[in-house]
């Protein structure tokens, strides 16, 4: 029996297709529904609002996708957003920041991302070196990260007026929100990272079979830590964008429940929770679907609580399709 097993690919063909195009089908359904039902849906304003909102989910979801690809999960993304979002105004509103506006602005972009990177190192080290379950390991920062952010700001809402910084969340290029372009640029970079680099190949191999990857000489620890670091830095960036959009930093609310949106977007986008797959553009698609569902319900006067149930239903459907594909 050296022949190839030919039935299996044929049997999974249908579900494969469903999985590959299920997201797009869902997107089309939501769009058609909105065009028919939601008032003023087909307007530039609506598009801009949705893009500016979806960008943060998409950016975090892409990072989450990398972590999920290693077979892990990162619950701390929302807390990291709050932390980095709290740091930025602290820096450019400081004496130094007001005395040297340009340097202050650069520092307000740089240091929050460094703080996020440290968070990623922390998560990665606990998972990869101490071998703690990812869900527990990232729970530490999930709980403490937001706490640190609130301590830094004394629990106050920090409002500011800094047009240069706010460009991150309100600027437009060719009529589209800046952060939308940023998300696309990051997606292209990560797509290249996953599909063309050695890091990316190892990432998928570790998620697919960690023991085999290690036995083949794969730097398991470094790659895992790398995935958590990228995820945290992207979360930090998303935290800055949220602060820039609002011209205010609220450590209690920035990134609240983002971990759920990001995980949902990644899963809807085709990431396998057991690892081994990193569909970067899928994560964007997932983020768009989640954002549109939120928007659809909001625009049609459905309450927030109901929107949460709808989100849960989407995740359930995505997981169901995954399971069907596995068998």
């Amino acid at each position, binding site marked *: 029996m050296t022949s190839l097993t030919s039935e299996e690919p044929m049997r999974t063909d249908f579900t494969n297709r469903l999985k590959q195009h299920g997201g797009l089908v869902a997107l089309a359904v939501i769009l058609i529904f909105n065009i028919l039902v939601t008032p003023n849906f087909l307007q530039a304003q609506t598009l801009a609002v949705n893009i500016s909102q979806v960008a943060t989910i998409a950016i975090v979801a892409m990072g989450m996708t990398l972590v999920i690809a290693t077979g892990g999960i990162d619950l701390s993304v929302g807390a990291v957003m709050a932390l980095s979002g709290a740091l930025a105004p602290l820096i450019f509103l400081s004496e130094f920041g007001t005395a040297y506006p340009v340097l202050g602005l650069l520092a307000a972009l740089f240091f929050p991302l460094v703080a996020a990177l440290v968070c990623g190192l922390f998560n990665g080290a606990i998972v990869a070196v101490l071998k703690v379950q990812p869900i527990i390991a990232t729970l530490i920062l999930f709980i403490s990260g937001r706490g640190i952010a609130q301590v830094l700001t004394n629990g106050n809402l920090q409002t500011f007026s800094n047009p240069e910084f706010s460009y991150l969340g309100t600027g437009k290029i060719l009529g589209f929100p800046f952060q939308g372009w940023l998300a696309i640029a990051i997606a292209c970079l990560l797509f290249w990272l996953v599909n063309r680099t050695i890091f990316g190949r190892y990432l998928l191999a570790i998620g697919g079979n960690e023991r*085999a990857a290690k036995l083949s000489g794969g730097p398991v620890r470094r790659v895992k830590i790398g995935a958590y670091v990228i995820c945290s830095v992207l979360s930090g960036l998303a935290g800055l964008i949220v602060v820039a959009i609002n011209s205010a930093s609220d450590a209690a609310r920035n990134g609240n429940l983002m971990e759920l949106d990001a995980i949902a977007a990644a899963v809807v986008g085709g990431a396998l929770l057991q690892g081994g797959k990193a569909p970067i553009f899928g994560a964007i698609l997932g983020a768009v679907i989640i954002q549109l569902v939120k928007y659809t319900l909001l625009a049609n006067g459905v309450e927030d609580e109901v929107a949460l149930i709808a989100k849960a239903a989407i995740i359930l459907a995505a997981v169901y399709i995954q399971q069907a594909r596995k068998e």
Partner: protein
Amino acid sequence: MAPLLAMSGIKKHFGGVPALRSASLEIKPGEVHALIGQNGAGKSTLIKILTGLYRRDEGEIEFAEAPSHLTSPREAQETGIATIYQELNLVPLRSVSENVVMGLEPRTLGFLINWPEAHRRTREILSRFGIDIDVTAPLGSYSTAIQQLVAIARAVSMDAKLVIMDEPTSSLDSSEVEILFGVVRELKSSGVSVLYVSHFLDELFQICDRVTIMRDGQTVGCETIEDTSKLDLIAAMLGRNAEEIEAEGLTELASGKQAYEEIVLQVDKVSTGPRLSEFSMTLHRGEIVGLGGLLGAGRTEAARSIFGLDPLTGGNMHLKGAPYAPTEPAEAIKARIGFLTEDRKAEGIIPHMSVRENLTLALLPHLRKSGQIDLEREKSLVEDFISQLGIKTAHMDQPIRELSGGNQQKVLLARWLATKPDILILDEPTRGVDVGAKREIQTIIRNFVDEGHAVILISSEFEELVEGANRIVVMHEGKAVSELTNPGITENALVRALAHHEEPAP
């Protein structure tokens, strides 16, 4: 004296595949009875039928002079059959007492557990076996040996008439084994029978009265231990003739020795733990050295130590004359060593990934070109290997899980060949592949060696070892104990060498 247990004519099929064809087992009261056989001989199926986990298709079982029709392990326990599994089914976080009296707690007022009485009773039971420990401490705080003894104590406290021990010594050190033997003797003297399953034949001669040998789902013999020898037992397990082995082995062992000049790997008294205590071997360029031994002899552990998977606790290695002490596989790979693991699914393939990605996994660091993977080179390399090794795949981007076992194995072989290794360690390279692929894989290995490289071959197929290896290092209980040299090795000679080291020390 009437036997305590009599099983006869036991048959059991699993979906048309016979696991037991005609098995029998007879145990007398107060007897320590060994059950031996190779993997797949049917020992565990027989035990599972005895303990009510499986139901027999045919056959008779009599236990304590009554026909037995058990349907669950719980019923077995109630009739007096207790099983101590390799994986203990106790609760490590609860106290020793709780584990011993669980389900049979002494009570006061009918519903409160009488803890002083429970502790007292536990201490009494354990002291019978010469164990004096704090019974209020969590069970998990004690060594595996103590935990095992507690499991036995629990069995005894439930008035077991027959205690089944499945590989009880596999995770014990030698002093712990002595304690266990003491317990077994204590059981015996109090009239409890023990069914003792072990791969370690030495142990049988120390504590067992009789031994039942199984092969291919059948009981092939039952001997009094004093009337038999290890050679007899091994011959019976493998289905060979003891005298033949003896005669042939003696004449052919000494013949011919082929000289190989350049030493590539020298392993000197390496140890990594209880399962590899003293392993030495020499590997020359152009040579296949086989590792021979029974299950648990330490062959895979020896391979793991060379590949940097288990840290050395003693001894040293030299690779091409230079000291060599890898701490992780990446270092071993850099030193041009490859390791084809035994468990293809758990340690070999990345199922989601394509043939191409699986094949180049170990080579990745060498495929870097301006920060990314050199896809052109990767593709041409994979194409070469697919045609060279005759890997049957629709295209190189087909997921590896869709390939047959033999073709998966070829991809994994190619994974290592692609790194241009000097030494390949092959653990069961042809297990679970069809006959055609097997030959092809053996040819690939042969070609690799003929190019001046070296191979360490682990195989439980004696034929493959005997025909393939230039030399065979025979291992026993974590030690390299002797060496056979081709030409002149026969399967019987190998069996004899294995058996020789099973003989008790004079």
